[in-house]
């Protein structure tokens, strides 16, 4: 039992660590702007919707990283939602960990999502086609 628990926990740890901060495509969520109670202004192309909880150290780091990204990248909006206040948003998006950031395009369709503190270079690479579209 002891060995089994430790082996299982190690596997979980390795999986979590390998997923942490990595972009995951293929999510089919939509209506991102509406979920956040917002709508894109004329020059806004991408919404980074961050789901956070009050008891979350990496959430603070993620907010800092995304704040810097939006400050230097025109067209990107960062909104943060507390899942304690809005569990419906977590359910709608199928989010089980905080922080999770879901990126939406202008129409509200999901571009990518990432759990843990995002790797900024990877995130910028995924968003680039959307931001550079004429």
């Amino acid at each position: 039992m002891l060995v089994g628990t430790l082996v299982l926990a190690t596997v979980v740890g390795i999986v979590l660590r390998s997923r942490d901060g990595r972009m995951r495509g293929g999510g089919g969520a939509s209506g991102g702007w509406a979920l956040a109670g917002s709508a894109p202004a004329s020059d806004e192309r991408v919404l980074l919707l961050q789901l956070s909880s009050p008891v979350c150290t990496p959430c603070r780091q993620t907010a800092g990283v995304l704040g810097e990204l939006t400050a230097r990248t025109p067209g990107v909006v960062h909104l943060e939602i507390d899942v304690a206040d809005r569990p419906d948003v977590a359910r709608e998006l199928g989010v089980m960990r905080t922080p999770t950031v879901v990126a939406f395009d202008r129409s509200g369709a999901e571009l990518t999502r990432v759990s843990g503190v995002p790797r900024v270079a990877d995130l910028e690479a995924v968003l680039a086609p959307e931001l550079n579209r004429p």
Partner: protein
Amino acid sequence: MSRPGDPPVDPRGVRFSAAVTTVVLALVLLSGSGWLLAAQAVVFALGAFAGLRFSPYSVLYRALVAPRLGPPSTQEEAAPVRFSQTVGLVFTVVGVVGYFTGLTALGIVATAFALAAAFLNAAFGFCLGCEMYALIARVRNNKQGATA
């Protein structure tokens, strides 16, 4: 539960406490001792209700380990850590009930969950209770929705 006035904590102390917790819970599984698990529950309760600095492992860290390490390079918010102590308390209390009422399987399973979470924190720096707060909030909301 957590008050905004809680001073920030040394992340190395958090990892140290998680490592001690891992060892204690491993000993519980090996010995099947409900009393040892009850002692761990008291440690969790002190951290969760009185404050992290009153947790015996935290006292141990400050007295024995911290003086040899020098000042911390970063600090961590106390609220998430305190929340994780509460999650640990719930699992260990369930485990204690299991061991003392003869539902040994329940005691073992609850202890194993707490052990897995403590080990993830000690070895990987993941606060499983904190990360699953979203999931817990969803479940809680579902229940409220069902009874409303």
